[in-house]
């Protein structure tokens, strides 16, 4: 370890222990510690820590506070749906269970501050009390006064208290209209590739050597580093794929030192994992099952689960018609769906600007009449406009493959929009032998 935490106010041995627990974060922990000062000294009323997900914000703060045994309360805004719950937790952690009964039902900020001030002289702490608030960005959705109050809590309560806010979002997005007490901003930078390698290499598998594991991490980072820097996510991916990596070793085909062969073996799996596990399309259990299956059947089936939606025959055509109506301009319908559409000057027809491509701008709304007209011309058999067709349209709306615009009670000439992607509609039209790309104006 390059640096070590040092502070006169605390026991040196404990600090050593703390810095062991915080790999690659000693500098940030040191800054925080120096801001906190000795336990008896005043600290800055509010500190705002920001940085990306899993850069060790909560970990550093909670390790410091716990290991140094400072009085603190940690609340997460995700858990506290109301301000009352937050007050209860803070009081419980700082003053024990008796105080929470003093809070009235649905307590106001005024009640909280009053009870806190009452409790202060009864249990005087000669140490700074810390209130840690995680996911502070959610404070903005709560009571408008809550954030300004927390920021200047020290002044309002007249106690040696420091509020530490943790968030992923920058402070500029928090500032209320009339301004407020400005907290001290502290940035937690992301881990560099070297840091990630160092941290990830710590969870070694007991039956394999450390070098092998760190070689594996190296390969993993090579594939995922450009899309994902989230330590937690990388760690999960590492745990999932390590057994696959070791398979050739177990079978005795490859030696540990032959990293190139190991790399060739694992790389396609990692690429595949990026398409599925990283997107959370499948859970890790399903992924493991898939890997098992693959060994048996030999072929990996397409994983994009949403490409397989079973629909009735006419519904498929309705959906295709809706897609065409959404993405083609109405003036081109004659050209696509009329046998004798007369003469159209080809140059004029094809002249279009890239900006107007509907596949960039998104689907346009269309009336029901147009949908039905296109439907009758794309479906090969004659269909009567029965109630069954109309009910299929409304069930497509329920499935959220179509969206109805305007109010539901508009009965005459309702308007719809198609809400499926090109890949999806291609898969659908393939099942009914319909070449949709030929009918799309954007792809002419």
């Amino acid at each position: 370890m390059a640096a070590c935490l040092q502070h006169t106010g605390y026991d040196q041995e404990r600090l050593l222990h703390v810095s062991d627990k915080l790999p690659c974060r000693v500098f940030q922990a040191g800054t925080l510690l120096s801001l906190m000062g000795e336990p008896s000294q005043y600290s800055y009323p509010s500190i705002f820590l920001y940085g990306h997900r899993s850069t060790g914000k909560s970990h550093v703060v909670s390790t410091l506070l716990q290991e140094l045994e400072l009085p603190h309360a940690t609340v997460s805004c995700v858990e506290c749906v109301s301000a009352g719950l937050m007050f209860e937790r803070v009081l419980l952690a700082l003053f024990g269970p008796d105080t929470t009964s003093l809070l009235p039902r649905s307590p106001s900020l005024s009640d909280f501050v009053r009870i806190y001030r009452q409790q202060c002289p009864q249990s005087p702490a000669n140490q700074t009390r810390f209130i840690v608030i995680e996911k502070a960005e959610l404070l903005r959705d709560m009571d408008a006064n809550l954030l300004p109050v927390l920021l200047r809590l020290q002044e309002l309560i007249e106690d040696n208290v420091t509020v530490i806010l943790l968030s992923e979002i920058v402070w500029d997005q928090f500032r209320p209209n009339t301004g407020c007490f400005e907290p001290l901003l502290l940035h937690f930078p992301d881990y560099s590739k070297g840091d990630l390698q160092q941290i990830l290499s710590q969870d070694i598998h007991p039956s394999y050597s450390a070098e092998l594991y760190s070689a594996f991490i190296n390969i993993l980072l090579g594939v995922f580093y450009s899309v994902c820097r989230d330590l937690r996510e990388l760690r999960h991916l590492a745990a999932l794929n390590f057994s696959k990596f070791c398979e050739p070793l177990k079978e005795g085909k490859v030696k540990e030192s032959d990293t190139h062969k190991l790399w060739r073996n694992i790389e396609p799996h990692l690429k595949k994992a990026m398409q599925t596990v990283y997107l959370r399309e499948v859970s890790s259990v399903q992924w493991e099952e898939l890997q098992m299956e693959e060994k048996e059947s030999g072929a990996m089936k397409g994983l994009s689960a949403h490409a397989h939606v079973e629909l009735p025959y006419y519904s498929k055509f309705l959906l295709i018609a809706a897609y065409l109506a959404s993405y083609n301009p109405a003036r081109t319908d004659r050209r696509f769906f009329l046998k004798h559409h007369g003469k159209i000057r080809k140059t004029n027809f094809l002249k279009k600007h890239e900006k107007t491509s509907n596949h960039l701008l998104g689907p346009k709304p269309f009336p029901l009449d147009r949908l039905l007209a296109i439907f009758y011309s794309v479906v090969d058999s004659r269909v009567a406009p029965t109630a069954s067709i109309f009910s299929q349209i409304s069930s497509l709306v329920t499935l959220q493959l179509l969206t109805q615009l305007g109010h539901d009670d508009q009965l005459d000439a309702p308007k719809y929009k198609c809400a499926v992607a090109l890949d999806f509609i291609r898969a659908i039209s393939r099942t009914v032998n319909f070449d949709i790309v030929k009918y799309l104006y954007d792809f002419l």
Partner: protein
Amino acid sequence: MSKRKADDSHMPIGESISQAQTLLRERLCHQRLPTRPEGVASQHKHLLELLKRTAVHGESNSVLIVGPRGSGKTMLLRCVLAELLTEADVQKTLLQVHLNGLLQTDDRIALKEITRQLSLENVVGDKVFGSFAENLAFLLEALKKGDRSSSRPVLFILDEFDLFAHHKNQTLLYNLLDVSQSAQTPVAVVGLTCRLDVLELLEKRVKSRFSHRQIHLLSSLTFSQYLQVVRAQLQLPDATFPDSKFCHDWNASVKALCEDKSVEEVLQRQFNSTKDFRSLHRLLMVSLCRVSASNPTIKPADLVDASRLFSADSKTNILHGLSILELCLIIAMKHLNDIYDREPFNLQMVYNEFKKFLQRKSHSMYNFDQPVVMKAFEHLQQLEVIRPVDVAATRAQREYQLVRLMLDHTQIMEALQKYPQCPTDIKQWADSAFA
């Protein structure tokens, strides 16, 4: 005396530093009152006079203290109160009620708080009042003891005064100002606010009951005075500090610090951007934190570092931690902004722009599926680097939801400069859309 001093001056350095830290931290963080407020002598005199008239002579009054955040409104008021309370008879009779617009969010809570602070809970008991005014009148009546001369003056301090104006019907303000107009109990209402247009917020009937006295705190410090303030903030008191030698050294080092060229530059920049004391305290606090036994004085470099910490753009910091893919998307968005003159865009357009870049490159190192790109895009949205134009329109497909980029050109370029191991082709692409 001198003997004791000689004994004390052998304190180990660590201990004296911790003493100095304790003292200065209380000053910088806990807003300990200075002996004499800086640069607001006339306002101080004015306010003291006003409050004295209420406290001693029993005249009612109302006043607003207006000034930007961190300009020392609370400090001024507290200084005046501290001075007022040095007089014995004032201390005996004057009652204070501190209300804060942030805490007392409606008039019911405020009234409860007033009752509590006047310690009249027992008197009120379970009484039921018809109206707010009746309740307040009862409270004030309860304070009277017999004849008018002995009724106790009450000082109402309303912090964040503008927030009280948002209460329903402004009942509290109306009643308080009404009492201060009529010759009942001597009452002084002091409002503190950072809104210059606060009077516009008041209803007509409330406004007419206000005395229209306003004390403005607009800092008129010159830079040399500002430097004096900095020095005064950091100096240790000669008389009371236990270790006289350390104190002397420290004060000398503070003097040297304030005369340093680079420090002066930093402070000049700070002074030009804002004169408020809070941000100055923040700056000094961070540099003070660096002081330890091995580094017993504040060095100019500490102050320069601290100012760099504050001037660092946090959005650029956040961009630093993005993955290559996310950075590519941001560059694509930047180009879209340039081409379409800051019109909102959607994911499809961004992806299209990104694909155009990839097509120009022969190697497909960054060839990602659209779902992976989508996930990166959503992460950016979560970080509020991009923001949906219309929050209500969630019914649109995610790919086609219109968003706006919340960064400007310089932030992106600066982030790219700092980005660790940024591939050159991406840098070139950022410079021009056709690279």
